[in-house]
């Protein structure tokens, strides 16, 4: 959208996670999700925490590692069309502040969930797989990698 825009930023998606208040909004969103789940009757605290962890990781996986491209046209001839949002962040520069934040948050959520589920076996397995599903795509070695051709185009 360079023509008609006020800046020379080719892909505004790269800067979204760095904008003011985004991290706070993300944390508040997790808190809101947790409170909504807590208000369901007849569900124990462990299940609520596991559900929070699962739903959070699923949503993050969808938003960061499944949806590709930009919801608006960019003047870069589609360089970012096949890239997920995680790969687009900061134009592919690794270990920036936002990337570190988005990696650490699921880990902290996992630690809290493990505590509140009292380290129960079944919950542990489910939460660990969920955490792995959201941590592995964030590794720099997997930048641009599509396993088994899933989500390639």
């Amino acid at each position, binding site marked *: *959208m*360079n*023509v*008609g*825009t*006020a*800046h*020379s*930023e080719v892909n*505004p998606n790269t*800067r*979204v996670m760095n*904008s*003011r*208040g*985004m991290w*706070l*909004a993300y944390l*508040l*969103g997790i808190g809101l999700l947790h409170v909504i789940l807590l208000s369901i009757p007849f569900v124990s605290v462990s299940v609520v925490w596991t559900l929070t962890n699962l739903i959070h990781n699923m949503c993050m996986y969808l938003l960061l590692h499944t*949806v*590709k*491209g*930009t*919801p*608006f*046209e960019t003047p870069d001839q589609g360089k970012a*069309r096949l890239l997920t949002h995680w790969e687009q962040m900061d134009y592919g520069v690794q270990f920036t502040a936002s990337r570190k934040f988005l990696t650490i948050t699921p880990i902290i959520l996992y630690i809290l969930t493990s505590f509140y589920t009292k380290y129960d076996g079944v919950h542990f397995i489910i939460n660990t797989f969920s955490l792995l599903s959201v941590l592995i795509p964030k590794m720099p070695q997997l930048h641009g990698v599509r396993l088994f051709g899933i989500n390639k185009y």
Partner: protein
Amino acid sequence: MIENSASKLLNGDTCLRTSNGKKSGRNGFVKKHCLHQQQKCHRPKEVSHIVGHNAVLYNKPFVESFEETPLLVAVLTYMGYGILTLFGYLRDFLRHWKIEKCRVASERDEQKDFVPLYQDFENFYTRNLYMRIRDNWNRPICSVPGAKMDVVERVTHDYNWTFEHTGTVLKNVINMGSYNYLGFAENTGPCADSAAEATVKYGVGVSGTRHEIGNLDKHEELEKLVARFLGVESSMAFGMGFATNSMNIPSLAGKGCLTLSDELNHASLVLGARLSGSTIRVFKHNNMQSLEKLLRDAIVHGQPRTHRPWKKIVILVEGIYSMEGSIVRLPEVIALKKKYKAYLYLDEAHSIGALGPRGRGVVDYFGVDPHDVDIMMGTFTKSFGASGGYIGGKKELIDYLRTHSHSAIYATSMSPPVAQQIITSMKCIMGEDGTTLGQERLRQLSENTTYFRRRLHEMGFIIYGNENSPVVPLMLYMPAKIGAFGREMLKRNIGIVVVGFPATPIIESRARFCVSAAHTKDMLDTALNAISEVGDLLQLKYSRRTRLSDDEEADHLSYLVSYED
């Protein structure tokens, strides 16, 4: 003058440490940042005005403000975009399963298995967010876009997918959106009469490029006049302002050159720089430390792989940035340019005619020698009521451009009535038509600007930009308020321009007012009352600052107050 501990730059120069003049009880909402990027700076808590190292270059206070977004507003804005995205996905789902009628163009049945052309993800924003508030843009007007205009009334029966004209016209809508800084957008008066005479004499079309029988004596007269107006040796005029940038920068820079362009440069400059094939590096908006760092790195390391010296280094800046309302720090840029032997390309699209005591633009505003700017570019669209652009500079440069510019070879030259309009209005501004009309208009514009900005500040809105710039962006932030503000203002008979993402950063949507010399104080008061009313209705008065009292401001020789995001 109190001098705070300044942080050091690379070569030991003291950094331009800034702070604001607020009471210390309200920290946390207005960030005080050192302009220097590298070292961490602590936030000064006391109230102090600092005379920066570079203050000697300015002959008047340079006051800009970009107040930081309040955190609550930012969070609510993201929430707004999140809800809109969810609903967008829902509507896409309904359209896909044919529950809702799809009004966008769609492929034929045979093409359904191909990669989607129309309902693609890249149109998501357009069809789900832009369509909802589309009635704020592309409004047809049916009169001269002067201080007041007539707007054709439109209704939509299917939520902005199609519009119908009702047949009525909204008369005398106050025009706060047109780039009409000196009020030359009029259909009566000496400019219009002379343009009509030129039409009778020359016709309207030129039917040729500058190189091929499209070079009229009117163009020669115009170019000599523009050169005299700017104070340069020679100038050249082109038919289209955008094309002036995008077609001439490729002739001036090429492979092996370095272009340093500001973050918020206009699309024409960016396109011209990209077409030229030179290496482009972007420095932070109006940030002289960032520019200096880039210059030093470039000169020390040379070209990317071969480390050969650059053929030339061109700095691209604008006079007034139209979305921020900020004015370039021209004295500092010129000092840097001289120190590191780079060339300066100054795009005065919005500032020519609008700034400076004699209306000669940003160079006149700062009192700088026009010969220091290597390439002065500008447009005739904004302050002269015409269309087209010009480039001014040394005679050798302009002679080179006359032969090598893409626009001169391939694009039709300026139409004669347009050229005549520019000649008449420029003579009016210079005072050569025998009246003081030009001088009065310049004075009126600067009074209107100061008054408008001061009143908006007092009302409590967040306004960006320099206090002398006639472009006034008012922050709206939330996507729903963009549409609401535009519609409410039109209901109150005021036409404005609103801008949202992705033309601006995601949370910083704004309404942009352009103050004009044609606005009388009554019109401005009407507009301001309406803005205040709508601001209360939509809760737009976000500013958390108190204005400095006039005594504190007068106490200091020069204080530079500037904020960064």
